[in-house]
């Protein structure tokens, strides 16, 4: 499956307090959380983006807290996937558990600019920047993990499987 969208760029060590500040962690509604996504670094982020847009960032994206509200807020804001040089450990696990596809791809931080049109192939891990015609390579997402993303997260995936 392919994801296509416009790029929003961020730097290294984007932490979970930036992704969703703690004062907003008084709800489990991802749409509500999405309104405040990235607020400390870009207060209008959630209003500026279009559904399906893609976040591209540097190393250690999602460092800090274990709040699952972070991938929920990114999804709730309408972002389709995150591509970064590397991810923090707990965020990596939480993203798949919450059904947010993320891709670790070396070189994206320098090679991709804000506003570029990007496509990401979940089956092959190929990332194409259609604006500057550059290609990057991430690990593909195996079929069962894609099932997890399609279902909207681990728990929904397990329930779907149980119901057969």
């Amino acid at each position, binding site marked *: 499956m392919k994801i296509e969208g416009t790029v929003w760029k961020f730097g290294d060590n984007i932490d979970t307090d930036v992704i969703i500040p*703690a004062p907003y962690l008084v709800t489990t509604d991802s749409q509500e959380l999405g309104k405040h996504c990235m607020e400390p670094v870009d207060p209008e982020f959630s209003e500026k983006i279009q559904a399906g847009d893609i976040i591209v960032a540097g190393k250690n994206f999602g460092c800090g807290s274990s709040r699952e509200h972070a991938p929920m807020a990114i999804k709730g804001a309408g972002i389709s996937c995150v591509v970064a040089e590397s991810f923090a450990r707990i965020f990596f696990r939480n993203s798949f558990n919450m059904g947010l596809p993320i891709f670790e791809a070396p070189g994206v931080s320098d090679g991709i600019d804000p506003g570029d049109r990007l496509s990401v192939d979940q089956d092959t891990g190929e990332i194409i920047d259609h604006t500057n015609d550059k290609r990057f390579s991430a690990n593909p997402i195996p079929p069962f993990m894609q099932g997890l993303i399609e279902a909207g997260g681990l728990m929904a995936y397990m329930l779907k499987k149980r119901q057969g």
Partner: protein
Amino acid sequence: MSQTITEKILAAHAGKETVHPGELLSARIDLALANDITAPIAIELFEQSETSSVFDPEKIALVPDHFVPNKDVNSAKQVQVMRGFAKKYGIKHFFELGEMGIEHVLLPEQGLVLPGEVVIGADSHTCTYGALGAFATGVGSTDIAAAMIAGEVWFKVPESIKLSYEGALQKWVTGKDLILYTIGDIGVDGATYKAMEFVGPVIEALPMSDRMTMANMAIEAGAKNGIISPDQVTLDYVSSRAKRSFTAYKSDPDAHYQEERAFDVSKMEPQVAFPHLPENTRPVSEVGTVPIDQAVIGSCTNGRIEDLRLAAQVLKGHRVHKNMRLIIIPATPTIYRQAMDEGLFETFLDAKGIVSPPTCGPCLGGFMGILGPKERAISTTNRNFLGRMGHSTSEVYLANPAVAAASAVLGRIGSPEEL
């Protein structure tokens, strides 16, 4: 085969003789923890699963500590969800206000986490319990929901890094300074996915409180867990508290480490981490002139009685600078009472500081000391990310309780030696 303490604990909980770094396994858990931010999602997911009971009502801890005493209606609703769940499923370790403290100080204090155990918590600072010789790591709410159903969780066995500390600690240098220095050295992603094992004569001489401060901040280097092999200090701490039997593991002398680093601490000064990353450390003598508006002494990192005693030692006979606010947060009701009985409150109040009830409060910008635009705080907490304690133009500097107390008196960041 030789193994590290982390590998031994994971092997024992997966029913295996030995395990290797990189190996995937499913481990039995001894305790699953969630707080008033992360529990509501875990509970929502648990209820969706239509499971009729939790795997073991004695092995789940629900601690409403982040926004409690409730800061607003929505945070009150989140604790109502926890309270209702605890009642419905007979969760033994739900802590109501009055018994509630900051989770990572409270659970060791109550003997609910012990050496050799596997503990997961929907809070990144769950790694604190590694100070007791447990394998403890932060996970998300989904993992807690799954663990509450099944009583086990999958892990990738981490590579281990050995960090050894030698030499004599200078006055005012604490476990906080050792871990800040280490994070400054390896970076905020220097231990991503790995186990940080703290060893050496300096660690062996540290009291439990300082060991917990060190393990607490392993996550600030990206680590999966921080760990210290149990010794007599550990056993003295847990023996009067433990309500069940436990096993103390030690790393084998020839265990494999992916990396080893040694630190000579003899010349180390108290450390200050500048905004907006814990790796931006400087010795306190090289801070320069940084005026501050607020000092916070508390949190799961430095809210223990030893931390409060250290702050009181510095504050005794002094008054907080007229441009400054000083907020002191004892981490649990037991510590609160101890501090009161020892006369520390008198010292704090005489200095014109204020004492808060136990809560995470300002550490994560929740309440009880939020920073306004461009305000600066020195804090004994663990994170100085952008906007962490309030407005996005505010700044947080991390330090030990003695430096925070001295800075409160000076009105700028400084050393207790300057008083």
